[in-house]
């Protein structure tokens, strides 16, 4: 399955975006996010971006006030996931223009849509910024 979930969490530990590629109940999600956020937000800049959690790994990266956390299977390539996070941020940057937490809060469905363009069924299917954004731009024109 590769990627199991993608989370965006702010400094206060509030979830700003959550995308799961396997079914979890609301309670499971709440517990999982709590554990992960506690684990990752306690770490500092000098520490590495990989955390082992339960039976998988979390690759995370901080951009300004937002943490991007990706849960992956153990044999997934950590550095590739970091690149993926960066690509995601760059894509959102291009769309929103210097993306910030508020953009994601108020345009959550667009952020989801971008993620859906990039990841399907837990594997990365699109890595070109132009390709990711073209459907969104089309849809914006249409409305």
């Amino acid at each position, binding site marked *: 399955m590769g990627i199991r979930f993608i989370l965006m969490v702010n400094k206060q530990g*509030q979830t700003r975006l*959550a995308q799961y590629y396997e079914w979890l109940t609301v309670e499971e999600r709440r517990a999982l996010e709590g554990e992960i956020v506690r684990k990752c937000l306690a770490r500092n800049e*000098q520490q590495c971006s990989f955390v082992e959690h339960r039976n998988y790994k979390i690759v995370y990266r901080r951009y300004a006030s937002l943490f991007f956390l990706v849960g992956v299977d153990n044999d997934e390539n950590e*550095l590739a996931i970091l690149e993926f996070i960066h690509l995601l941020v760059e894509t959102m940057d291009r769309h929103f223009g210097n993306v910030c937490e508020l953009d994601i809060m*108020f345009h959550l*469905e667009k952020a989801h*849509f971008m993620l859906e363009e990039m990841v399907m069924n837990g*594997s*990365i299917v699109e890595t070109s910024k132009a390709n990711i954004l073209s459907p969104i731009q089309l*849809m914006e024109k249409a409305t």
Partner: protein
Amino acid sequence: MSGSSLMDSLFQRSLEDLIKGLRQQLIGEQAFISKALEEICKEIKSTDLSTKATALLKLSHLSNLHFHGMSFAAFHALEVLSSPRFSHKKIAYHAISLSFHDSTPVLLLITNHLRKDLNSTNEFEVSLSLQCLSRIANVDLARDLTPEVFTLLSSNKLYVRKRAVAVVLRVFEKYPDSVRVCFKRLVENLENSDPQILSAVVGVFSELACKDPRSYLPLAPEFYKILVDSRNNWISIKVLKIFSKLAPLEPRLAKRVVEPICDLLRNTGAKSLLFECIRTVVTSLSEYESAVRLAVGKVREFLVDEDPNLKYLGLQALRIVAEKHLWVVSENKEVVIKSLSDADPNIKIESLRLVMAMVSGHNVSEISRVLVNYAMKSDPVFCNEILGSILSTCSRNFYEIVVDFDWYVLLLGEMSRIPHCQMGEEIENQLIDIGLRVKDVRPELVRVARDLLIDPALLGNSFLHSVLSASAWASGEYVEFSRNPLELMEALLQPRTSLLPPSIRAIYIQSAFKVLVFCLHTCFVRGGSIVPSASMDNFPAGVSASASHESFDEISVENSADATVVHGQTHASAPITKASIVNLLNLVELALGPLLGSNDVEVQERARNLLGFVDLTKPEVLNSSVQEKEDSEGKGVETSKIIKLMCDAFSKELGPVSLSAQGKVSLPDGLMLKENLVDLEMICGDIKPPSSYSFSFGSPYEEEKDWLSFSNLHIKEDSEQSNESTSLLAEHRKRHGLYYLPSGKSELISNDYPPAKDPTLQGDINDNTDDLVEITEESLNPKRKPNHGKPRPVVKLDEVDEKPVAMKQPEPRDDSLSSAVRDVLFGSEDIPPTSSRSNLSNNPSSKRKGKEKQHTDPRVESRENVIDRNSSSRRSKDRSHGKERRYRSPKKKNAEERKNTDQKEKEKRHRDHGRHKSRQRAEEPLKVPAQTSVIPDFLL
């Protein structure tokens, strides 16, 4: 439109309003959310689709970020889905992906919606529905929508096709039979030149190959081509993952790919790809020395990099290499040791694991020294991580790597004194274990135990209590090695012992009993009741010369050097005088008096025993000291008898008890065990005896208790001064001895009455300890590899590792999937002549296929699945034989195949898609010549 719904839609809060409201938090978040949910519940029932859609959008938002269940809206989501407007569909699909799962009741109703959108001309609608399918597909959906997915797999719109490829993974997982339909088209996409498609399809194969790599070996040529041609790092990483699974299965393939991978290693600039190459080389190509060297060079670059990420990954890679090439770790020792003090706990733990991988008999003491120093400086979590790994590494395989047990016992003592230490229980186990197994270490053990016991500060640390209990036990059991028993006695009875939990306090009291008996014995029996001052010289040497002390005897005979050491120490030890004995007895009375009313049964019992003994001996001791010269013959003899008796009771050595001990106790006559227990067996039939412990004292705690109660028995007997006690004791010993008779196999016991525990281990205690002495001696000699004559139970663990990869069976769950894949890959390439098909066509299975195509009757369908599974598992077995035969004679194969393979294969070929594709596939053999082997000659 009714008035109310108009009002609703006019004044409905949009999602943006909701978010703004949440941010302002005028009435508190929870209150605001419940108010919003109330509104949503009302709005979602509206007949106006826009209102409904907005409500659903808001609900998805709350569910996604604020953990509110939205299962109640499942049907409404379906209603929104039926809207013709794309924006509504988008909202509905998003809500459905978020909230639907296998047991959602309305899942059945979505099939037609999905089918309609999958056939839509709008590629975005198709994409939405594929996306949704990839999240919610269950068996039924996967089965019913397989034809649509199959069509989309060759769609000329790349945007749709790559999604169809990605969704195939889920469809295969849920409905393995779809492999027969879709697999060919999936493989065709491997030859597509478009990076989008390729990325998706390689991703699918890397997931599939993870589960059952063997099935995908025939596709190696395609993967190889991608590996060599790809300029896209994402794709290369995925292909490398596939090869790291395939290469161990087929040496020729490994030989073939090692060069391209090394080229990538040398030339790539992307760290992610570089790391994937490294990982592939060290996991799957570790036999290729040059490749490993190249990879290790890159690993070193990672290790010295500033970036903590690269450092962490470098250490991880080292750990993988360490399994087969330990020299790599030694080469990078400095970096690894330095990483122990890294700022990042994850890096520290990685480097600790690596350091432990380097440990061997030669360097264990240096490494432990370094690690203990680190532990003292570290934070509590990492400190215990270090201590835990030292303990587990050193005790591995019965202390295989420990050469010098004196050193190890000292180390254990030192470790328990580290402020953050929480490994008390493990240290306790090991102290007792070593005390029982290794005779030579006992003097040192007593010294370490004394140092721990005498420090009143340690009693306050509850993590150390279990270590203290082991120390108390050791100092009582092996008191004869103590330099100063009086001091020990004071330590055991010090007031701060009230801080201990009762169970440990009981052990303290029992140990005090043993020490007291030893002191009295030394003073009165050994030194004679009149000349206590002589005890200073007599004490150790005299004792060891005594024939009544078996254990002492053995030591003086076996290890005279040790005896002289003990002798030498006596000069430092305090003399046991009569006055000191009197003081001792007073001390006992003072310390234990209050415990007679203790609430804890164990403590009270033991205190009573000890005080009873003191009462018994004290008058005589006082007496003899007053009338030293006149009446020493009369009552003094009586006292020394008691003391001697007690001393004998304690002098019997304890040892590990074999698991098969129970089996060696012969059944007494007239005891009808089986008859009475038949009923019980039925009740307890499913309770299995634990088999993981090699010795019955797996928990030393239990053992101690047993032992204590056992000695209690004696004490009571003795205090009654019954003359029978000696005979009873003798009898008990006899029985005791029976437990330790040399094992052989317990053939005497009838098989139908199973012994309580696994009868695989050696028996006799003496044999056992001799064995251990041997082992110790062996390990003292560093050149000789520890070679254990008797099977050590831990060795079993190693055997598991040796299991060859090729033996690995696919998991049962995936069985049908992989067998389906094999059918398609191996089976369809040779089309049997039509005549043979018609011969078999009256087979009942041919009827099935028609139904399956139409997917009309789910019941028939599911029954079919069952049959399919059975036959496919049978087939996969046949397959392996078939392979061998193929090597032998490719011509014979067809006939045999036909005989072997059941209706299954035929059914597949009959199917329209299958036939259609196998025709297409018929061109394949030209590219992949000589089908005689599983791996095409291309690889040779």
